[in-house]
């Protein structure tokens, strides 16, 4: 009797967790405090790009940080998402925004799957070059064929009307909430994804794909899946980047430098970490603003914009190398070390 009782209660004891107060606090701030206090500048210029870049970093991290397939074509897949979502909203307006966004992500996933096909035979740097091929091909595609941007003269997408169930989302707050909700839902899915069998298989492939194949993981199928899922995330991030942040976009908004930027987010934030993307994106999007303010304060506008940009480039480069040398697991690792130290402060282990 007592044994069966123990059996019934044991699982619930095992899965009992602490209430994530920190996370709840962040959500409270994001959904209630920010909309009440944030002004348009903060929403438009800082919070929306931060959230979108986090999402893009998350997409790339699933592929590079979790599955170990380095990609430098992230922006190409973002472009697919943006142009596909635009196409859905333009040509099938009855679908509505959420379905169009999802459709854009799915088309991006298909494109990612196709460009990920070589991963069944190719590894490492050779594979990285195929993602570069994707980047250049997709950029060319969206410049060359006017059908994608509705035959406009300048090759740009004009922002469609963003509306959800009759609510107009074309205010900064509306676009912020749209982005926040999308990012939250997708992050939640990603957290569960990497905890599941799929995520474990991905990490096994990352750590050593030959060994993964030996223990019976279908390596090729999971690599392809990683490309598709990653592109799905990147596609949705691209659509949000185009319509929630920029308002208008062209193929040049998704050039190779954007791909590098997203790669830097995951290097600096932390490869193979979900929260790391947010930290990395915050760092990448805030640093230029800080540097330009610092430049203003130090030199009082006497230094020209070009030099400031060069300086910023050098600082970025140095930071990347320093991170790779000192903390290859990124800012998120630094934060967790700090938290551990604080939980025992002033004592040590």
């Amino acid at each position, binding site marked *: 009797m007592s044994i069966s009782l123990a059996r019934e209660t044991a699982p619930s004891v095992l899965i009992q967790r602490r209430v994530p107060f920190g996370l709840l606090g962040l959500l409270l701030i994001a959904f209630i405090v920010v909309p009440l206090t944030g002004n348009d500048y903060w929403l438009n210029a800082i919070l929306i790009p931060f959230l979108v870049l986090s999402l893009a970093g998350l997409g790339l991290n699933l592929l590079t940080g979790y599955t170990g397939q380095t990609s430098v074509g992230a922006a190409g897949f973002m472009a697919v998402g943006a142009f596909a979502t635009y196409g859905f909203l333009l040509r099938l307006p009855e679908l509505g925004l959420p379905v169009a966004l999802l459709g854009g992500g799915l088309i991006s996933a298909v494109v990612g799957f196709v460009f990920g096909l070589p991963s069944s035979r190719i590894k490492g*740097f050779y594979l990285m*070059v195929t993602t570069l091929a994707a980047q*250049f091909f997709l950029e060319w595609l969206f410049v060359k064929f006017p059908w994608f941007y509705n035959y406009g003269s300048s090759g740009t997408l004009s922002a469609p009307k963003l509306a959800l169930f009759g609510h107009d989302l074309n205010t900064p707050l509306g676009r912020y909430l749209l982005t926040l909700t999308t990012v939250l839902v997708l992050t939640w899915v990603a957290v569960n994804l990497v905890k599941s069998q799929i995520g474990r298989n991905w990490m096994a492939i990352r750590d050593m794909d030959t060994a993964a194949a030996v223990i019976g993981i279908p390596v090729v199928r999971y690599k392809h899946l990683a490309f598709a899922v990653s592109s799905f995330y990147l596609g949705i991030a691209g659509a949000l980047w185009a319509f929630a942040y920029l308002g208008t976009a062209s193929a040049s908004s998704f050039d190779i430098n954007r791909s590098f930027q997203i790669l830097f987010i995951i290097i600096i934030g932390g490869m193979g970490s979900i929260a790391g993307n947010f930290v990395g994106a915050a760092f990448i999007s805030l640093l230029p603003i800080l540097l330009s303010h610092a430049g203003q304060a130090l030199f009082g506008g006497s230094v020209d914009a070009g030099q400031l940009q060069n300086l910023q*480039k050098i600082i970025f480069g140095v930071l990347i190398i320093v991170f790779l040398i000192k903390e290859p697991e990124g800012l998120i690792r630094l934060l967790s070390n700090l938290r551990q130290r604080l939980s025992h402060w002033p004592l040590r282990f």
Partner: protein
Amino acid sequence: MTFFFETLLGGLLAGTMYSLVAIGFVLIYKASGVFNFAQGAMLLFAALTFVSLHDQGVPFALALLLTVVVMVIGALLIERLVLRPLVNRSQITLFMATLGLSFIIEGLAQGLMGSQVRALDLGIDDVPVFIGGMMVSQFDLIAAAAAIVLVTVLALLFNKTRIGVSLRAVADDTTAALSIGINLNRIWQIVWAVAGIVGLVAGLLWGARQGVQFSLSLVVLKALPVLIIGGFTSIGGAIVGGLIVGAAENLAEVYIGPLIGGGITPWFAYVLALAFLYIRPAGLFGERAIERV
């Protein structure tokens, strides 16, 4: 038919320019397993340094010598500050470090020497000459000759000197090379310096062709398909790959381009490289890695 051969020859000659850039990659990859994304930035830096010195009135030969010295110092600094702390890390980590490095070098080059387009005159007239009824650019011929000289010198360095033997030993088996007393750090310094000098040659030729400016560092993106086709570890492969890419690109732009809207040069080489990869996953001359658990 003459037009076809003219296009082909023009492409082949343009291809030697790609090979020049690709050789810099191969050198570093062979000796240290680093895929050096900063090669393009080094090329820009070398060309910019040379042009800046030359504009200041420094004679040609002295400017060349000073630029070589600068590139060697740069190589020593890179080895000490970037490579040595990252020793024994994964190849991807090292690649990302060179990405950061390319940012630093580009920022330095433009910050110190300006970002406007500089003209570079090497004293070579770009007039067409006729060989067997075909029009060929004289400049391309000289560039091809420079590539041949460079490859010969490198081949001699690799095969006939003591340094070359240690370089090959390191490329073959780093641990074994260390155990017989080869100084790995010294080898890296030499290789990066040589790659810098190769970058200088390539930078001068490319710079004379399209002006010395930021876009010069994007040449690196042209060299990647060349590397894929030739394999990362073979200088001969870099040459052959360059020729294949140059010829195919020229022919495709002329014959396939008009069918699908033109402007296909940026990605055609990549698609070609992909096709090669499907058949030979380690390039034409690359070494196929054997994997063990």
